[in-house]
């Protein structure tokens, strides 16, 4: 008994000793990796040396830098306003806020800070934040919007890296720093329409309804009744097609054809057939109702609850065509598109690719991570094929780009100041490589207004990647 007792005692004592070694490693590791984590509240209360690092794009364009007087400057002005934000006496926003700690040298006068300083080579230079945004894409997206109210989001489907992130109208952060523009009084310009504004998605939501149908056994060739109008049981007024007639020959059309011509009557009837639980379930899997993990925070997209829709076929029919209470951010629509191009899995979107020392040594690098599976891989493949048809011969022909396979879906959603124009899509040389979402508020038809904007951005991407 004494031997076994000694063995247990030795094992437990060794475990305690190992805990000590482990703790020493963990404290060192945590200090180097998590002291400046944007989620670490402690970092915001700490003391810092004066001076902040630069914010630069993936192609090394400087978008934020301290000038020789230590004043913050934004050389690209309005172009990066909504993602980079500002660091002014009056307040901070965007990455200037979320990466405040990473851009600075922390010094509370503690021994830890002194030791970390030694590890840094004693230079104590602030680090640079490197974005995933490519300047030519950002600029072309902004130019293509041409001052119209709206947003463009471009995402790398395989990693979730954000290549362009534009909200319009914009503001000049230099003016905020100078004190000549009060962000509070310019809410229209400071609002981030890519992530903080929700709008009805209109017909782009038909992708979700189609996914719900594919989930329960439909296929792209399943025929549906072609009708001029659809009156849901108990509904007051019927739903009509955009063309005010039949979608096809007045007999039947396939699910693919219904998506190609964006046939309202088919999708309204389909939503009612599927039922509220099925449609809401598909939307939730695609990120509705979820907090999207995003650098500067994002509004939650939403739709009416399943229990309400189960009891109200009229509301369900309107939900099926992306109206009623369906509200979505352009960021989520871009993620939905990206997941279709990535076998059904949306990657976590990120815009900070790395933290570097001024001499270019990597301090931290963002590792791509899956966010959520939105569609099964089979459904994603079907959706992609159907959306390719939309661009080759349907409402999205204006998004065609020579040399690229583009798949997409247009949307024209009811808005009080005129319809909101939507386009979501994926494009690549052979396989999908990037995803895009474009919205122009009260801009008109998605196929005529939003799709051409997407085409211009995709052309630039083709030129850059070719």
């Amino acid at each position: 008994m004494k031997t076994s007792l000694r063995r247990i005692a030795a094992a437990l004592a060794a475990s305690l000793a190992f805990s000590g070694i482990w703790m020493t490693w963990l404290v060192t590791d945590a200090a180097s990796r998590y002291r400046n984590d944007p989620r670490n509240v402690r970092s915001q209360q700490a003391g810092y040396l004066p001076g902040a690092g630069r914010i630069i794009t993936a192609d090394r364009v400087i978008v934020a830098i301290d000038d020789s007087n230590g004043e913050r400057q934004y050389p690209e002005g309005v172009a990066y306003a909504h993602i980079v934000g500002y660091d002014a006496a009056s307040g901070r926003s965007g990455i200037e806020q979320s990466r405040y700690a990473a851009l600075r040298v922390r010094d509370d006068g503690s021994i830890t800070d002194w030791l970390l300083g030694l590890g840094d080579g004693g230079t104590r230079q602030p680090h640079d934040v490197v974005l995933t945004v490519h300047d030519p894409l950002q600029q072309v997206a902004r130019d293509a919007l041409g001052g119209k109210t709206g947003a463009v989001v471009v995402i790398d489907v395989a990693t979730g890296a954000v290549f362009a992130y534009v909200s319009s109208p914009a503001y000049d952060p230099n003016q905020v720093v100078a004190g000549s523009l009060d962000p509070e009084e310019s809410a229209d310009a400071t609002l981030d329409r890519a992530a903080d504004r929700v709008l009805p998605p209109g017909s782009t939501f038909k992708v979700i309804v189609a996914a719900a149908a594919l989930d329960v056994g439909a296929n792209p060739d399943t025929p549906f009744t072609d009708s001029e109008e659809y009156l849901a049981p108990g509904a007051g007024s019927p739903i009509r097609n955009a063309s005010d007639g039949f979608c096809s020959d007045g007999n039947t059309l396939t699910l693919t054809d219904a998506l190609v011509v964006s046939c309202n009557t088919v999708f309204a009837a389909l939503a009612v057939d599927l039922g509220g639980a099925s449609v809401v379930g598909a939307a939730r899997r695609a990120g509705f109702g979820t907090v999207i993990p995003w650098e500067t925070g994002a509004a939650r997209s939403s739709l009416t609850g399943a229990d309400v829709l189960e009891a109200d076929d009229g509301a369900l029919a309107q939900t099926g065509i992306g109206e009623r209470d369906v509200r979505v951010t352009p960021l989520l629509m871009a993620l939905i598109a990206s997941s279709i191009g990535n076998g059904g899995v949306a990657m976590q979107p990120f815009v900070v690719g790395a933290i570097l020392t001024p001499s270019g040594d990597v301090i931290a690098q963002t590792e791509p991570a899956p966010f959520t599976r939105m569609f099964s891989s089979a459904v994603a493949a079907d959706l992609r094929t159907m959306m390719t048809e939309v661009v080759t011969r349907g409402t999205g022909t204006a998004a065609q780009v020579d040399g690229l396979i583009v798949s997409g879906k247009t949307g024209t959603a009811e808005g009080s100041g005129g319809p909101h124009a939507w386009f979501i899509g994926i494009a690549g040389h052979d396989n999908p490589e990037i995803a895009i979402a474009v919205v122009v508020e009260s801009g008109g038809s998605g196929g005529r207004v939003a799709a051409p904007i997407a085409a211009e951005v995709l052309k630039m991407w083709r030129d850059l990647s070719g």
Partner: protein
Amino acid sequence: MVALSAVITAAGTALVTATTSGTVTLDTFAAGAVHLGSFGGLLIAFRRWAPAASRLLLPIVSLITAVGSIEVFRIDPDLGRLQRWWLVLAAVIGIAAMRLLHRRGVKVLRRYRYLFLVASLGLLALPLLPSSLPLGGATVNGSRLWVRLSLDERTLSFQPGEAAKVLIVVFLASYLADRRRVLAEMPHSVGPLRLPEPRQLLPILLAFSIAFMVLVYQRDLGASLLLFLVFVMLLYVATARATYLVAGGLLAVGGAFAAATWFSHVAVRVEAWLHPFQDYATGGYQVAQGVFALAEAGLVGTGLGNGSPWLIPAASTDYVFIAIVEETGLAGGLALLAAYALLVTIGFGIALRANDSFRSLLAAGLTIVLAVQTLLIIGGVLRMLPLTGITLPFASYGGSSLLVNVLIIALLARVSHEERT
């Protein structure tokens, strides 16, 4: 040493009040006086009724309690003040236990083992009583471990499972002392592994099912693991048969996999352990906050009162170790670990020197409880293991836990005394 730890308590509390509110408050004297009174009383009782006992046992416990009470007060002054009352009560119960054992020695416990077994199972089941009864169960943080005694308007909550673990150790020590020769017989063999008669494996399966039931019905991962590990280790100590360690290890690993697959509350813990930063907004928040606190620690910490340990959920209970490390650094954390290692070493020393197998198993079992509990929670907050919500002995806030741990020390002291007289 005891007087020194009281001075440390007072000084630490003074430092906390000074850094957080700018003045030294009356809490300083209250903390010092309560600590000195409680441990002074225990010391006198130990000297009087167990004069030959190890002289290091109580001072080590007094030091750990001092560090814990300072940090609990620092995280939440109200809890800190409440904990003082628990310390007084624990001292009273510890003194009473020493007085009772003085008369008849620990041997008397051996006779009532089945009473203890029934009592401990009853205590384990107590929280499952309907909450509507005057003495009923209560669910706190998703686990049903609490019993709430309602008298008129007032309620008193306690965790009977804490007491159950001591009673189970007493039962096991008594049972194994009688049966260890039989249990050690290994008539069959498969390769290098020797196997007992199948029916000899029944007790281990029974212990496993009890532990598993605690997990299922009370959702308490920590207590479940603690009970099972203590049982397996004690069985090994008693029989010196590695077969039991292997069987217990396999059951524990299998049970852990099954639990992580079947029970969402366990799966959430495992996920939070592996990927706290990916699940930051949901399950990983607490673990991530713990890592943020460690990121501040450095060599000597932020200084008492200068950190932000309250940002971690359950900082004064599960995460008190991390809170101490945040404010006193690696130096403080390693010193505390050393104190636990010393306590455990003393405990096993007592078990090794004990003059019969019951006393030896009793001391070993009680020490294993302290050691495994310390390892489970420190391993959990340091991300060596999934986090299981149990207290850090003598340091965490918690009345039931403190009472029972003082009782463990009283029993150890008594065994220590008896082996030298």
